[in-house]
């Protein structure tokens, strides 16, 4: 392994920008216990605005810089004001809200008074300095990063260490009420933290942008976020210095790997291993914090008052479901082929969302890598689809994926909550980048060639098989098949729910110690959750592969994992109906009305944010309330029917449209 000095320096520079990102993540986490997915995007708006000021307005660089930083500070503060009302809600909800926020901020960069006229001019730099190491030229942007990033980090560290705000931030994260009673202005402190995070993010973006061509407004990629998160975790999510140094280390390691290894798959593998290693090594430190944020208030968000104990209410619900299923089953007869494909897609996404409902909603294990598991299923379909009948392939793929899910979830036996999000995200990034993209590889030592990846990473084509002799070639029959899979999955999940599997998982989620004391095997319960969820994701992957027929590595991009998380949250965290509704909302609406900007707007970040802010119980809660309303109406109708004078003939007729409305 050779390490030329310019590779080292280059690694340090990359690491510095990871470091700034990691600092922002730590800052927000130690204040609000939130994994801020918008950390990268907070500053990108400012960086774009800097370009606008510099080129379009012709401002002096320094003046433009001050304006841009001020804008970033304002954006940070406003983000806090927006998210503030969520800070006592389940962490998962807030995390998804920050995903929404980052998408909204992405839209900001396209606003006319922020977006520069031309995106293809070099990013401005204040001074022109550069140097060579050997033949490698370090341009101004890199030199400035080398100087400024450490200064920014030191400034932040000093602020956190010496100003009373730093202590206040840590205190409020641990016990907000208690901090308030001691006179800590909790909300203001939080605003200060986000303002700083905004400025920090602006520095990150402004320092990293020179040299990049035009990916200026790009949303923060999961890979980049993952590396910054890993660094932050090395610092146990609270220690700024350690996180920053670790980020530099990661940058250097990555640079050395890239220089020495010839395939990105191997680099990804090493980085994935590194993430897992960090997680395992740092578990002790990560666990010292209060556990409150991991379990408390999971369901605080929804104030559903269930009326399901009334048999009538149950009948209304059941008839609604039946009507919905019948309507969807009839749809392929009338709609076009494209729409039939959409139905299959929604059904399959709903199954994936259901698998996450089991894992996250019930067991409380946050997974950002669900699409990695779906990809496992798809791989099975690609390799075995031709040789094994579908009816066997699905459970087989499910079982294999379940095993993989259990392995991915093993860290969960020791850590909970958001740390698991990191390891699953790492899994999904690695799976797409390394496993799927490498068709075949040599097993070391025995020197055998294994083909585990997609046969053709750019475009793999598979043929739809028959299911018990029924051809699935047409979109219409495949839509029916997908619907059947969804219905079967829902029935299966309901069975789990009624047979106490859910109760067991939820009890472990809400009070691990208490559940253990009552004799529930903790480790087995968690493994079970991962296995069940993996099983579903696995056969959903098979279906997805056959539904799309032609797919590539990009079909299983880690961002889809985040989309599935959004589905579950929008639908309602632990509701079966919610998972289906979430899929319908996030996949169905954009596909149906995808051409209009408004719908994209609604189903993307802003809709997400609005939902989480104002309807924390999700779509399932809406549906439930509607069901209650219908029940009430039916009840009243029934009562009136009982009362003299009898008019039952007419009222019976009146009942039917009410029942029909359930599906609508």
């Amino acid at each position, binding site marked *: 392994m050779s390490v030329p000095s310019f590779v080292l320096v280059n690694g340090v520079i990359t690491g510095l920008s990871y470091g700034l990102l990691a600092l922002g993540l730590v800052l927000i986490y130690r204040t609000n216990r939130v994994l801020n997915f918008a950390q990268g995007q907070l500053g990108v708006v400012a960086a774009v605005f800097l370009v606008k000021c510099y080129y379009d307005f012709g401002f002096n660089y320094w003046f433009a810089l001050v304006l841009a930083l001020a804008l970033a500070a304002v954006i940070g503060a406003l983000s806090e004001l927006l998210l503030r009302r969520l800070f006592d809600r389940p962490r998962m909800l807030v995390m998804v809200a920050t995903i929404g926020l980052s998408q909204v901020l992405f839209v900001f960069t396209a606003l006319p008074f922020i977006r520069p006229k031309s995106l293809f001019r070099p990013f401005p730099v204040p001074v022109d300095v550069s140097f060579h190491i050997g033949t490698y030229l370090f341009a101004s942007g890199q030199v400035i990063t080398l100087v400024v990033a450490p200064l920014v980090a030191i400034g932040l560290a000093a602020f956190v260490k010496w100003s009373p705000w730093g202590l206040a931030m840590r205190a409020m994260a641990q016990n907000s009420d208690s901090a*308030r009673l*001691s006179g800590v202005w909790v909300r203001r402190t939080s605003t200060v933290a986000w303002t700083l995070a905004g400025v920090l993010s602006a520095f990150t973006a402004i320092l990293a942008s020179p040299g990049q061509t035009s990916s200026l407004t790009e949303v923060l990629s999961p890979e980049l976020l993952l590396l910054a998160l890993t660094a932050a975790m090395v610092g146990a999510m609270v220690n700024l210095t350690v996180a920053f140094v670790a980020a530099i280390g990661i940058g250097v390691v990555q640079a050395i790997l890239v220089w020495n290894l010839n395939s990105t798959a191997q680099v990804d593998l090493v980085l994935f291993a590194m993430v897992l290693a960090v997680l395992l090594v740092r578990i002790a430190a990560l666990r010292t*914090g209060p556990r409150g944020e991991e379990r408390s208030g999971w369901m605080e968000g929804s104030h559903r008052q269930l009326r399901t104990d009334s048999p009538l209410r149950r009948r209304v619900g059941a008839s609604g479901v039946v009507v919905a299923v019948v309507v969807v089953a009839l749809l392929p007869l009338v709609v076009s082929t494209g729409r039939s494909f959409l139905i299959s897609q929604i059904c399959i996404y709903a199954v994936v969302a259901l698998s996450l409902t089991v894992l996250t909603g019930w067991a409380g294990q946050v997974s950002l890598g669900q699409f990695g598991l779906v990809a496992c299923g798809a791989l099975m379909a690609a390799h075995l689809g031709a040789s094994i009948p579908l009816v066997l392939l699905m459970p087989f793929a499910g079982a294999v994926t379940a095993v993989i899910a259990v392995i991915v979830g093993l860290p969960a036996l020791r850590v909970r909550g958001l740390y698991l999000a990191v390891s699953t995200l790492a899994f999904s990034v690695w799976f797409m980048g390394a496993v799927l993209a490498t068709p075949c590889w040599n097993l070391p030592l025995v020197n055998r060639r294994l083909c585990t990846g997609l046969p053709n990473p750019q475009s793999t084509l598979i043929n739809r098989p028959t299911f018990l002799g029924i051809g699935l070639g047409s979109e219409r029959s495949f839509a029916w098949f997908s619907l059947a899979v969804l219905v079967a999955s829902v029935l299966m999940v309901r069975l789990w729910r009624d047979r106490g599997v859910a109760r067991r998982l939820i009890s472990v989620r809400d009070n691990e110690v208490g559940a253990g004391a009552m004799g529930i095997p903790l480790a087995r319960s968690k493994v079970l959750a991962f296995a069940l969820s993996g099983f579903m994701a696995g056969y959903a992957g098979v279906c997805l592969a056959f539904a799309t027929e032609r797919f590539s590595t990009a079909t299983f991009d880690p961002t889809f994992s985040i989309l599935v998380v959004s589905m579950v949250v929008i639908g309602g965290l632990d509701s079966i109906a919610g998972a289906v509704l979430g899929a319908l909302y996030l996949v169905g609406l954009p596909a149906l009305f995808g051409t209009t900007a408004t719908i994209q707007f609604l189903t993307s970040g802003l809709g997400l944010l609005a939902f989480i802010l104002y309807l924390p119980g999700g779509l399932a809660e809406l549906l439930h309330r509607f069901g209650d309303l219908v029940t009430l109406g039916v009840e009243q109708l029934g009562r009136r029917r009982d009362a003299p004078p009898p008019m039952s003939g007419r009222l019976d007729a009146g009942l039917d449209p009410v029942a029909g409305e359930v599906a609508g």
Partner: protein
Amino acid sequence: MADQVLFDFAVPDELLEEVVAKSRDPDVIADIGVMPGTGEGKPPSLVGILRSNGFAPLVLLTAAALVPGSFQNGIALIGTNLEHSFHIHDAALGAVTFVASVSQLLWAVPLAVWADRGSRKVVAGVALLIFSVFAPLMGLAPNVWAFTFIYLVASIGYGVNNTVHNSYLADAYPTEGRGRVFSWHNLSDPLSQTVGILIFGYIVTVAHNWRWGTFVALAGIPIALALFTLREPDKGQNEQSHILKASGMDLHSQQAEAPRVLLGSAVTRLLRIRSIYYELVAVAILGFAGVGAPLFGNLYFVRRWGLDTAQRSEVYSIIGLAAFLGLPVAYVVGDRYFRRAPERPLVIAGFCITAYGGLFVASLYMPQLWMVVTLQFLANAAVSPLAICIFLTLAATAPPEMRTICFAMFGVYSLVFGAFAGGVILGAVSDAAGYLHGPTVALTLIGPVCLVGGILLFIGSRYVKRDITLVIEDVLERHAEGKRRQAGRAVPALQVHNLDFFYGSNQVLFDVNLEVGQGEMVALLGTNGAGKSTLLRAVSGLDHPHRGVIRIFGINCTYLEPEQIIDQEVALLVGGKMTFPGLTVRDNLRIGGYSMRRQGTRVRSALDEAMDRFPELSTRLDQSAGTLSGGEQQMLALARVMMTAPKLLLIDELALGLAPKAVDRLMGIVREVNGQGTTVVLVEQSVNRAMSLAEHAFFLERGEVRFDGPTSGLLQRDDLLRPVFLGSAVTGLG
């Protein structure tokens, strides 16, 4: 025997029953005669009211609203000139207008906060002055960026019209004439759309340059200067004099200083006033119509009727004239109806909006253009009294010291929530329904939306009397307190008056009243879930009550945040929940001194004192607090709380989960602190301990105070204690 006693307890004594019945009755409302603005017969004539209270405030404020209004409409008029001068397109012009209307909203809230804390005439004057100075500069702007920036600053002038002005007028003129005064003031709106725009247009035409038009704003300078010469009326003075007179009370009493309530707390409080809540939700929904109607109405006229820009502006100027019709209705009806039944204006508002929805939707499907225009004209006429009716109700139900913020919320809700959601949702519907019929379909949604808004206003109207009663209660409470002060009686450390508290829809405290004298040590006893902790949370500011007043050392602290209350020298200790387990003991103590962080020496001496009191902590300063034992954590908590040297110490279950020895130690310290003059309120589970510590006790059951007297007296009350403590404590003590 035992059964007999239990049975006796199940029937509370008559007095209590009556109190309970009264406090739980949602319809406890004041006598209508006491309500400000009500009375027999016709309201007094406006001329009479103006004569006795001066014409100047109304005339000046109307003029002050007219100038910026005309300017804004004028800017809309010269849109094409702007596009030409600055070489911009429609989209950019739209963005500029958007920025201006958003910034107007941004200005409104801070200005309202300022106005509620300080002098409203000054706020109104300063806002107008800044507008009058900056607006003409827009005419000198070299490019669109400078223009937008100056516009942003100048829009401060619009941020006060419906907020600060209304609040000032509500206090400057008696409640009997409020509706008519608001109507006159609101006349500035249609006037600016007609007369104002004419003047602006005339100047621009004569000068052949739009830039001269901006000098219209200069007219604001003398008006602003004149505003400064007005007298600033006391907040709520009319309500107060009316209520006190009607209740047969002496008008003069010493008033305690008003606390500085933060914006967030004020909003929380206002939203807890039910009629205001319904009004604001209705307004938010109506904003949907308010923004959607013009936005998609334009598209409707283009696509359905093929009108060009000039024709559309003609149509809209006809429809706009309808506003002149509605105002006289509000003028005539508002005060008269309010006088007979204060909820009536809101009912009218509900009808207005429902009628608007119906007429508007009907207009969309008319076969002839003139029918469309006529119906929309009628719809607009129907809706124009709406604002006055709602303003009238808001002014009557909002606490006078938060009135401006309340008016500002009206704007925020209608624009931010309604308009934003309206624009997006209507846009989606319109796009989905196709090019030609999209706008029609989208606008049809306004019908049901208006119906919902109307229903919400009807529901809200049912609470108006109750909410005015709350205002009356406040006035009377303040008056009683003033009287007490005047009589020179000692100020209690803690007073709780008529406290109601809800978690969601679940009422936890029912009309709680208690007083704790300075230097006392009192025990707060009760069953689990009786509301003891909630009461302490409310006193310390962690939660805010839904009704009632909390005074600490005579100062009204009901809506202060805990971060402010600590400056009133109050501390709350919640057993087992106070430490920061991840911080070191030292950092825990540093947080204890956080509120004194600017007084280094005081923090240091407080730290030393804490070390002296708890020597065992000093050896563990660098250990993280989570590793301490339960008793030590509680010690740390007590040490932390004592650092600010509170004069009122609230303790919620000091003994929670602690060994008797540790409890004795801590109790000893509490007693010592009490001996040094600190008032202590102690939530206790053990009657024995309460007996040994406190001379006075309160007993709470299901959110009601069931006993208030010397602790020894509580022992006589078998009926209270027996079911709670199963007799053992009582027999043990007896």
